[in-house]
C-alpha cells in the first residue's frame, strides 16, 4: 500500500475523537479510514471528505458517544489512589531520607512563610485607611549649597494658603505637629502617651472608627479624642465622654470621643490621642504674631485631595505656592512644594537631592529574595536526594514501563510523591510559624497575625505547597521517568559520572548561598560593632537625661545643689537638646572670608556653663565655658568638624557672627556624635543661653549604684515638681536605640544564615548517607584488603570537601561585591577584612567535615563480615 497521502480533514477527526467513547475510538476510526480510502480511490478526495463528515455525524448517537465523565474518572481515581499508596510506602520505606526531606523543606517553608507574612504586612502598610490612595503629606524641597533637602515641616500659613487658594483641589487640609509623648492626668492616674495636635478633619481623613462620641469631637478647642486603649487605662469601663483631663500641666481638656486604636501597620499607629490644633495655636500665640509667617517651619501638613483629582497633578499644580509667598531671602532656597502620597510613606520614604529614591522597599526585596533562596535550598535537598536514590528506583521505573506505564504517568507519580512531601512539610511549617510568630514579631517589631479567617490565605497556602512540591519534584520526575527499561532491567544501568554533575552543582549552589549569608552576617555585625565603638566625644556611662518644664527650671539650682551635696550626682547641666539628638539647627551664621552665596545651617545647642562638665566632652583647644568670664554669654565653642568646615587656621579668639551679633570662639571640642552614628559629624556650635532650654543632663556619681541614684534623683525632683511624671532616660540606652534598625537586620541575617547552613548540612548528611550505603560492599572489601578507618573516612569526605571549597571560591567575590554596596550607604563604615572570609570559609569547611564524618566514620567502622554477607 502506498503511504496515505490524503487524509480526512483534521477537524472532523478531532471532532470524532472528542465525542467518541475512548474504548472503541480506535476501531471505529480504523473503519472510517478504511471506507474513506476506498471512497478516495473510487470518487476522489472531495466526495470522500464529505462522506467522512456524514459518517462522523451519523456516529453521533448514544452507545458511541463518550459517557459523561464516568469513564475517565473511574480510571483516574484508582490511578491516583495507587500514586498515593506507592508514595506513602516509599516515604515509609526510607524513613531517614523522608525525615531529611520533610524536615528540611519544612524549615525552608517556615522561613518563606514568615517572610511572606512580613512582606504582606509591609506592602499593605497604611492601607487600613479607606482613603489611603487620596491622602498625601505636603513636603517641600529646598536647595542650599547645591544640595536639595526634602522636608515635611512647613510654616503654618502654607496649609491656610492651600485651603484658601486651592480649595477645590483638596477635600481636607490638616495641620499637625509631630506625634510626641505628652502627659495626661485624670484623678490620681498620670501617664505619658504619644499624641498629636490636628485640625478636626483628621478624624474623617483617617476614617477613625468611633466607639463613643462622634468625629466632630475636635471642633471644640479644649477637646480631646482618645484611642480605645488609652481610654481603658484611665476610665476602665466607665463612659469617658465629658470627663476632664489635665494635659501636660498646662491645659484642661474634655474627652469628646473615643476611637478604635489605629492599625499597627499604619504610620499613625502611635497616635494614641488627638488634641485640637486650635489649642496648640492658642498656646503659641507668637506664631500668628511673627513678622514673616513664611519664615519658620513649625508644622506638618496632611491633605486629602478631592475625589476627582490625581495626586500627581495636584502636586504639580501647587509646586510654586511657597516661592510665590516667601521673602526675598527665602527665595534663595528655591522652595518647591510636592505631595508625598500616603501609599509611599512607609516604603519609599527616602529623598535624595529632592528625588524619592526608595527606602524600606529595599529591605522588603532583600528579605523577599533571601526567603526565596532559603526555600530554594530546601528544594535542592529534595532534588538531590531523589536523584541520588534514582538507582534504587530505576528498577521500579523499568518494570512499570515494561508493564505499560507511560512516561506521563510516571511523571505524575513522582510529582504526587513530591507534593505529598511538600504538603507534610507545609503542615509542619504551619505549626512552627504559629509557634514562632510571637518571637518573630518581637525581632521585627511588628504585630503580625496569621489571617486564618481569610479564604485567600488558605488558597495561597495551598498554591504555595503545591508549587513548592512541583518545583522540588520537577527534576527527579523528568530525570527518573526518562530511564530506558531495557538498560535498567538488564542490570547494566549505572549513573555515569556526569550523572552526578547536576547534583554537585546543586550542592555548590547551596553552600555558596550559605557561605555568602555567613559572611554577610559577620559584616553586618562588624559594622554595628564598629559604629558602637566609634568614639562619641563624651562619656555615656551614668549620664541621665530628663525633660525640663518651667517648674523644674525655676528650681534648677536648688535641685542641683541638693543632689550634689548628698553625693548622688557629680554635675547637672541644662541643654537645648538631649545628648543623642540635635533639636535646634540655625542658619544666619557669618564669618570673615565666608563666600556670600554659601548658605549654612548648623546644629547650635543652647547650654549652660556646666554642660561640658556634665557630659564630659574633651577640649582640644582653648577652654570650656566658665562663670568667671562674663563675656561667655556671647561665645561659641565649636566642634572639630565646624573648624574644618569654616576653615579656621587658628580658631581661638576668632569671631563668628550669628544674626549679625558677634560671638567669640573660645574653645574647640572633639566631635560629639549626636545624630546618626553612621554619618559623618555635622559642624556644630554651642552657646550659653537660658532660653530654648529643654533638657537636664545629669552625671551620676560613679560611686553610687545607678538604681539608688535614680531613685534619689526622682525623690528630689518630685519634691520640687510633684505634678509631672519623672521620665529619666539613660543616655547610653538612648544611644543604643540608634542601632536598632541595623541590629534587626543583623539578627535576621543571622537567623537566615543559621537556617541556610542547617538546611544545607541536612542535605549533605542525606547525600553522604546515601553514598555510604551504596558503597557498603566496596568499603567492606577495602577493609578486608587493609584500608584503615582514616583512609575510608578520607575517601568518603573528599568529594564533599572539594565541593565546599569550590563554593567558598565562588561566594567570596559575590559576598564582597554585594556587601561593599551595602556599606556604601554608611558614611562611617567598617572595611571588610580578609579574616572574615577566612573564618567563614574555614567555619563552613569544619561544619561540612563534621557533618560528613558523622556518617562516614560510622560507615568506615562497619564490620566487613556484616557488610559483605548482606544481600
Amino acid at each position: 500500500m502506498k503511504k496515505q497521502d490524503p487524509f480526512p480533514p483534521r477537524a472532523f477527526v478531532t471532532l470524532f475523537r472528542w465525542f467518541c467513547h475512548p474504548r472503541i475510538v480506535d476501531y471505529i476510526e480504523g473503519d472510517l479510514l478504511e471506507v474513506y480510502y476506498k471512497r478516495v480511490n473510487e470518487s476522489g478526495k472531495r466526495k470522500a471528505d464529505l462522506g467522512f463528515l456524514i459518517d462522523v455525524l451519523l456516529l453521533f448517537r448514544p452507545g458511541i458517544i463518550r459517557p459523561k465523565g464516568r469513564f475517565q474518572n473511574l480510571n483516574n481515581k484508582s490511578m491516583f489512589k495507587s500514586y498515593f499508596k506507592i508514595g506513602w510506602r516509599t516515604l515509609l520505606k526510607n524513613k531517614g531520607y523522608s525525615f531529611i526531606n520533610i524536615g528540611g523543606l519544612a524549615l525552608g517553608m517556615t522561613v518563606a512563610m514568615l517572610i511572606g507574612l512580613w512582606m504582606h504586612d509591609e506592602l499593605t502598610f497604611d492601607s487600613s485607611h479607606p482613603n489611603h490612595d487620596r491622602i498625601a503629606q505636603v513636603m517641600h524641597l529646598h536647595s542650599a549649597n547645591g544640595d536639595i533637602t526634602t522636608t515635611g515641616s512647613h510654616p503654618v500659613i502654607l496649609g491656610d494658603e492651600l485651603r484658601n487658594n486651592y480649595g477645590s483641589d483638596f477635600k481636607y487640609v490638616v495641620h499637625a505637629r509631630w506625634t510626641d509623648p505628652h502627659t495626661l492626668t485624670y484623678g490620681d492616674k498620670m501617664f505619658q502617651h504619644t499624641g498629636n495636635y490636628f485640625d478636626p478633619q483628621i478624624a474623617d481623613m483617617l476614617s477613625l472608627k468611633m466607639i463613643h462620641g462622634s468625629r466632630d469631637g475636635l471642633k471644640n478647642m479644649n477637646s480631646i479624642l482618645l484611642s480605645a486603649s488609652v481610654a481603658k487605662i484611665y476610665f476602665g469601663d466607665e463612659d469617658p465622654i465629658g470627663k476632664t483631663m489635665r494635659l501636660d500641666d498646662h491645659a484642661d481638656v474634655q474627652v469628646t470621643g473615643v476611637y478604635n486604636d489605629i492599625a499597627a501597620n499604619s504610620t499613625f499607629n502611635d497616635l494614641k490621642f488627638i488634641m485640637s490644633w486650635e489649642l496648640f495655636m492658642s498656646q503659641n500665640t507668637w506664631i500668628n504674631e511673627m513678622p514673616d509667617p513664611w519664615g519658620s517651619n513649625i508644622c506638618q501638613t496632611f491633605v486629602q485631595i478631592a475625589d476627582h483629582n490625581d495626586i500627581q497633578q495636584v502636586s504639580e499644580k501647587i509646586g510654586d505656592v511657597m516661592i510665590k509667598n516667601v521673602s526675598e531671602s527665602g527665595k534663595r532656597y528655591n522652595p518647591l512644594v510636592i505631595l508625598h502620597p500616603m501609599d509611599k510613606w512607609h516604603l519609599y520614604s527616602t529623598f535624595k537631592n529632592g528625588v524619592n529614591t526608595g527606602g524600606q522597599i529595599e529591605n522588603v526585596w532583600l528579605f523577599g529574595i533571601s526567603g526565596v533562596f532559603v526555600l530554594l535550598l530546601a528544594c535542592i535537598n529534595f532534588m538531590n536526594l531523589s536523584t541520588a536514590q534514582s538507582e534504587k528506583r530505576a528498577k521500579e521505573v523499568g518494570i512499570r514501563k515494561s508493564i505499560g506505564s507511560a512516561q506521563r504517568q510516571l511523571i505524575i507519580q513522582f510529582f504526587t510523591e513530591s507534593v505529598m512531601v511538600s504538603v507534610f512539610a507545609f503542615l509542619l511549617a504551619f505549626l512552627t510559624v504559629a509557634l514562632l510568630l510571637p518571637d518573630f514579631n518581637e525581632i521585627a517589631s511588628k504585630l503580625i497575625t496569621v489571617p486564618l479567617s481569610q479564604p485567600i490565605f488558605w488558597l495561597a497556602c495551598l498554591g504555595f505547597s503545591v508549587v513548592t512540591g512541583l518545583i522540588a519534584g520537577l527534576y527527579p520526575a523528568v530525570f527518573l521517568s526518562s530511564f530506558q527499561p531495557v538498560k535498567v532491567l538488564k542490570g547494566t544501568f549505572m549513573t555515569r559520572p556526569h550523572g552526578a554533575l547536576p547534583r554537585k552543582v546543586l550542592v555548590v549552589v547551596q553552600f555558596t548561598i550559605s557561605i555568602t549569608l555567613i559572611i554577610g552576617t559577620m559584616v553586618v555585625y562588624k559594622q554595628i560593632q564598629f559604629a558602637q565603638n566609634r568614639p562619641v566625644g563624651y562619656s555615656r556611662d551614668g549620664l541621665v537625661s530628663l525633660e525640663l518644664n518651667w517648674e523644674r527650671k525655676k528650681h534648677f539650682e536648688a535641685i542641683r545643689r541638693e543632689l550634689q551635696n548628698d553625693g548622688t550626682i557629680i554635675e547637672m547641666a541644662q541643654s537645648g537638646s538631649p545628648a543623642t539628638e540635635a533639636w535646634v539647627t540655625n542658619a544666619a551664621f557669618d564669618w570673615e572670608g565666608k563666600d556670600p552665596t554659601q548658605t549654612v545651617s548648623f546644629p547650635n545647642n543652647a547650654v549652660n556653663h556646666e554642660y561640658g562638665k556634665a557630659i564630659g566632652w574633651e577640649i582640644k583647644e582653648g577652654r570650656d565655658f566658665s562663670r568667671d568670664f562674663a563675656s561667655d554669654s556671647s561665645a561659641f565653642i565649636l566642634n572639630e568638624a565646624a573648624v574644618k568646615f569654616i576653615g579656621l587656621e587658628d580658631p581661638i579668639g576668632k569671631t563668628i557672627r550669628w544674626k549679625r551679633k558677634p560671638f567669640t570662639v573660645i574653645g574647640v571640642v572633639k566631635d560629639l556624635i549626636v545624630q546618626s552614628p553612621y554619618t559623618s559629624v555635622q559642624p556644630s556650635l554651642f552657646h550659653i543661653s537660658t532660653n530654648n532650654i529643654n533638657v537636664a543632663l545629669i552625671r551620676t556619681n560613679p560611686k553610687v549604684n545607678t538604681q539608688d541614684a535614680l531613685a534619689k534623683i526622682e525623690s528630689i525632683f518630685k519634691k520640687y515638681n510633684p505634678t509631672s511624671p519623672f521620665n529619666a532616660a539613660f543616655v547610653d540606652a538612648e544611644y543604643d536605640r540608634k542601632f536598632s534598625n541595623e541590629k534587626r537586620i543583623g539578627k535576621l541575617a543571622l537567623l537566615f544564615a543559621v537556617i541556610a547552613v542547617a538546611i544545607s548540612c541536612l542535605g549533605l548528611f542525606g547525600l553522604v548517607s546515601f553514598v555510604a550505603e551504596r558503597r557498603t560492599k566496596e568499603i567492606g572489601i577495602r577493609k578486608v584488603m587493609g584500608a584503615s578507618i582514616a583512609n575510608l573516612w578520607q575517601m568518603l569526605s573528599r568529594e564533599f570537601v572539594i565541593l565546599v571549597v569550590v563554593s567558598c571560591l565562588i561566594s567570596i567575590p559575590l559576598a564582597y561585591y554585594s556587601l561593599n554596596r551595602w556599606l556604601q550607604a554608611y558614611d562611617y563604615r567598617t572595611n571588610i577584612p580578609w579574616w572574615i572570609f577566612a573564618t567563614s570559609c574555614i567555619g563552613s569547611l569544619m561544619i561540612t567535615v563534621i557533618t560528613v564524618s558523622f556518617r562516614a566514620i560510622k560507615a568506615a567502622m562497619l564490620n566487613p563480615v556484616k557488610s559483605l554477607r548482606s544481600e
Partner: protein
Amino acid sequence: MKKYQLGEFEELVIMTIGILNNQAYGVSIQQEMGSRLGRAISMGAIHAALTRMEDKGYLRSYPGESTPDRVGRPKRFFEITALGKKAITYSKTTRDEFWNAIPKTVFQTKLSH
C-alpha cells in the same frame, strides 16, 4: 419477544455476522448488509447496534491486526455468543410460528383481487 431483546435491525446485523463468519468487523458488515439489502447503511447505525448487542451479551469482540490501509488502527472483529445464537434462533422460531399460523386462505384471497 420478552425473553430476548432483539430489534429488527439488530437481528439483521447479528445474522450478517453469522454470514461473514470470523471476518465480521465494521466495514465488512456494512458492505455485506449494503449489498444484501440494496441500500447504504450508515456506519453509525452499525456501530451503535454492535455496541448495544455486545452490552446485551449477544456478541463478543476481539481486536484484530492493524493494516496499512487503516493507518495503523486495529480492526475489531465480532462473533456471536451462545446467548446471541439462542436469541436469533428464538426470534426465528417465533417468527415461523407466526408465519405458520397465518391461514393459507389469506394469501389466496389476496391473489384473487
